[in-house]
């Protein structure tokens, strides 16, 4: 079975890719916070941030179609969640929400596709993110595909034993029992995994192997991003 990966282009070798995970985490977080802080009455700032994102995209060598495709795949969820929020803002509020969401997603897709997920996890860990959280993200990344496959097989098995369409209520019933089964299976898998971890002398600490070093170009990149954000809010 084929999967699409969240870090599909992460093993390229562009100037953005060779940066260390921590500097990228910090820089992209700062840019996203910057986007969120742009006041509604200064619409021109959005263009400047779009421009910055475009430069980063160009540098990253990731196909534009991929970035845009990914963004518009996730976008509906965010816009849906935010529909009620800008009630007072009317159409303008909704428009700004939309622009903010697109910008943030561009940046996130860029971050996850210029940094291998493992490196991201290491970066988070070294920035002081709690071990247990990072570990669980790692498991999520590892087992998402196993779970997806399990779900796909269950769906195939269901389709094999069903002729035509079931009524909506029955459909829901089947779906809920599938979700339940999946939950129980993952629970059992978690227990087996824990046994496997204990068997390899796990004692509560997840070991980390030596990661990429923080270098001068990371510092330069961070400084550049900081300067950009400061200037963007300073100059009118």
């Amino acid at each position, binding site marked *: 079975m084929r*999967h699409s990966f969240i870090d599909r282009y992460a093993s390229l070798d562009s100037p953005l890719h060779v940066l260390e995970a921590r500097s990228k985490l910090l820089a992209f977080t700062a840019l996203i916070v910057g986007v969120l802080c742009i006041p509604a009455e200064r619409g021109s700032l959005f263009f400047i941030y779009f421009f910055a994102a475009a430069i980063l995209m160009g540098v990253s060598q990731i196909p534009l179609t991929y970035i845009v495709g990914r963004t518009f795949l996730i976008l509906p969820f965010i816009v849906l969640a935010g529909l009620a929020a800008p009630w007072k803002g009317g159409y303008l509020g909704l428009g700004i929400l939309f622009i903010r969401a697109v910008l943030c997603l561009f940046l996130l897709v860029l971050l996850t596709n210029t940094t291998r*997920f*493992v490196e991201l*996890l290491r970066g988070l860990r070294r920035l002081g993110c709690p071990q247990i959280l990072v570990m669980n993200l*790692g*498991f999520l*990344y*590892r*087992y998402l*595909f*196993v779970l997806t496959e399990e779900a796909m097989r269950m769906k195939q098995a269901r389709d094999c034993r069903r002729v035509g369409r079931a009524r909506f209520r029955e459909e829901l019933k089947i779906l809920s029992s599938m979700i339940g089964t999946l939950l129980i299976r993952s629970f059992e*898998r978690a227990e*087996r*995994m824990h*046994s*496997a*971890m*204990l*068997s*390899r*002398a*796990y*004692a509560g*600490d997840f*070991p980390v*192997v*030596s990661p990429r070093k923080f270098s001068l170009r990371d510092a330069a990149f961070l400084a550049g991003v900081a300067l950009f954000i400061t200037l963007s809010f300073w100059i009118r």
Partner: protein
Amino acid sequence: MTDYAVRITRLNYTYPDGTKALEGIDLDVRSGEQVAIVGPSGAGKSTLLLHLNGILPGSAAVRIKGQSMDSADLRQIRKQVGLLFQDPNDQLFCPTVFEDVAFGPLNLGVPAAEIPRRVEKALLDSGLDYAIRSRSSHHLSLGERRRVSLAAVLVMEPEILGMDEPTSNLDPRNRRHLIEVVSGLKATLIIATHDLELVLDVCPRTVLMDHGKIWADGETRAMLADARLMDLHGLEVPLSLKSGTRP
């Protein structure tokens, strides 16, 4: 005095839901021996393996290299006893192969500088290329995953190696490859399996389990050729013994 790797005396185990899994198991395995545990599904083979390194309690009955499980340092026991699980997806939980194989030695406090060398050796010993280290486990084929799992166990340099169905679901080429790797190992082997041809190839001694008890313990060929015994416990005489073509 004989050098026993594993001594199990009157081991009982009941699962929390009340299912009796093991009843009065007695088993001695000498250092360097290769022992197969055969028996139908649900016989208690996997449960027995999980007792070898103290994952399941009730372990006062189990002694590893003369050390009783409840008195010894469990970490020390787990360094000595490696377990290969049936589903590689349970065993490979790290984002990359390298981290998975390095997991055990790092937990045992092996110096970071020594890790790459140890990982490389384990991967080679398992019949893999060192280049596989940066791949993600979910990109690998089942045969490769099984071998990475084996590397993740071998890297801890265990003296005793317990394997749960090492050849299940493998295609003939991968199965053959794995058998070659396994038969080249120096460790004491305890293999729980349905693959009786594997047993004939690798293990001179076989233990037959059914319903949580040991029914027979002896020389592999004689036992597997005993049609009545095999039939009684839901197994069958391997083809190669039936036709008598095997030298």
